[in-house]
């Protein structure tokens, strides 16, 4: 039984007013700084001592411009401080990037969505993170900034394992960039969890697809909670791309998606059940997008 401390341990609180100041502060203190955006993951983790007690907590909320959700050329930029609620409630995201708003509104609770950020959900890098499959299916990238410069990393190269990412100690994730989607594309995020709220996905499936003259022109399938990191299912996508998405082909693609999973056995669900559900949920999501008959 893990000890749960009711009180937070001592740390220093830093609140830089600019990006330069923030990057300077973290570059000098590798390993002893934790970044605070919404805090909905960090504060419980520190209380539970799941992370080493940080000497410094750096609150990003006074860095200007990081809270913005910007639409340009049909693409999208989500600042590091944009809350889950703001993303979930954005009408343009709901219309053009449906899996993301569906995922956002299925996360946690109003209280957590009001504080927590999509960027934080990605940085925390839990395999079951709801926003991850949605963003993978949308082909998102992240922007990482440090004093050494900025770099962009495609999200499918961002996660390295459970709760680990490619972010270096002196880097800060400032932005999630979602490219313009194919005209006429449709998307969905389906979350399977025993409870409707305040629950993690047992399996999460996001699909973004485009039909043209009855043929699947483009499709992206992403899965959460079925491998050490959120993943794409490229072989299943390849089966569909350029073909007519009949119920039989959708079924085959959903079975194929299963071959790319390596789910865990835990108290939420057995490995076997998760595997069955990857098939069922992927088939359901694909059917919803490509209008099969099932």
């Amino acid at each position, binding site marked *: 039984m893990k000890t*749960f401390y009711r009180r937070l341990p001592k740390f220093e609180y830093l609140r830089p007013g600019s990006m330069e100041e923030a990057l300077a502060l973290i570059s000098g203190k590798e390993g002893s700084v934790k970044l605070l955006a919404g805090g*909905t993951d960090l504060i419980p983790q520190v209380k539970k001592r799941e992370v080493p007690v940080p000497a410094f907590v750096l609150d990003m909320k006074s860095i200007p411009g990081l809270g913005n959700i910007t639409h340009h050329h049909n693409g999208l930029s989500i600042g590091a401080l944009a809350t889950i609620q703001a993303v979930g409630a954005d009408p343009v995201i709901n219309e053009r990037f449906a899996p993301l708003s569906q995922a956002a509104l299925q996360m946690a609770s109003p209280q957590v969505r009001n504080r927590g950020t999509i960027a934080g959900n990605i940085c925390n890098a839990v395999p079951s993170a709801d926003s991850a499959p949605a963003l993978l299916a949308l082909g998102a990238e992240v922007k990482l900034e440090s004093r050494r410069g900025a770099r962009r990393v495609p999200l499918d190269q961002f996660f390295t394992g459970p709760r680990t990412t490619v972010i270096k100690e002196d880097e800060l994730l400032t932005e999630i960039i979602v490219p313009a989607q194919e005209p006429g594309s449709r998307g969905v995020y389906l979350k399977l969890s025993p409870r409707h709220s305040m629950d993690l996905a047992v399996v999460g499936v996001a699909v973004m697809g485009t039909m043209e003259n009855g043929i699947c022109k483009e499709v992206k399938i992403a899965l959460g909670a079925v491998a050490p990191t959120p993943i794409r299912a490229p072989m299943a996508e390849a089966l569909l791309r350029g073909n007519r998405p009949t119920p039989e082909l959708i079924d085959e693609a959903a079975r194929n998606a299963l071959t790319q999973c390596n789910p865990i056995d835990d108290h939420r669900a057995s490995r076997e059940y998760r595997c069955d559900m990857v098939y069922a949920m992927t088939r359901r999501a694909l059917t919803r997008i490509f209008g099969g008959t099932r």
Partner: protein
Amino acid sequence: MNLHCRVNEKEYDLEIKPHMTLLDLLREELGLTGAKEGCGEGECGACTVIMDGKAVNACIVLAAEAEGKEILTIEGLAREGTLHPIQEAFVEIGGLQCGFCTPGMVLSTKVLLDDNPNPTEEEIKKGLEGNFCRCTGYTKIIESVKVAADKVRG
């Protein structure tokens, strides 16, 4: 460190510790014990307060993050000894048993109704999804919110 914020329409200039949560500040420094510490990790909603018009879990917000914010706790809801209509509705319907979750329930109801004065049952459930009640089974809480909505709309 110093903190300046407004709580229940009163200005405060406080000396705080950086590792103090907003809930610690409200309960232990300001004596506002209406917000309860249930789980301490943002799961149960017993510590819900309204910060700048939004419901938040005070147990996972640092006191330092309340700089310049406007906070409403359950103590700030009644006016001159008269209960707020939402509180009246909970009393009339009996939307509580032990009462531990009630301050959070009432404040979540307030932001829900501020945003959506005539919610459906589904919308009520969604609005209260971050507030656990371990006594009632929720039926009378949902009923209370419906009555509260009628009262607030007049």
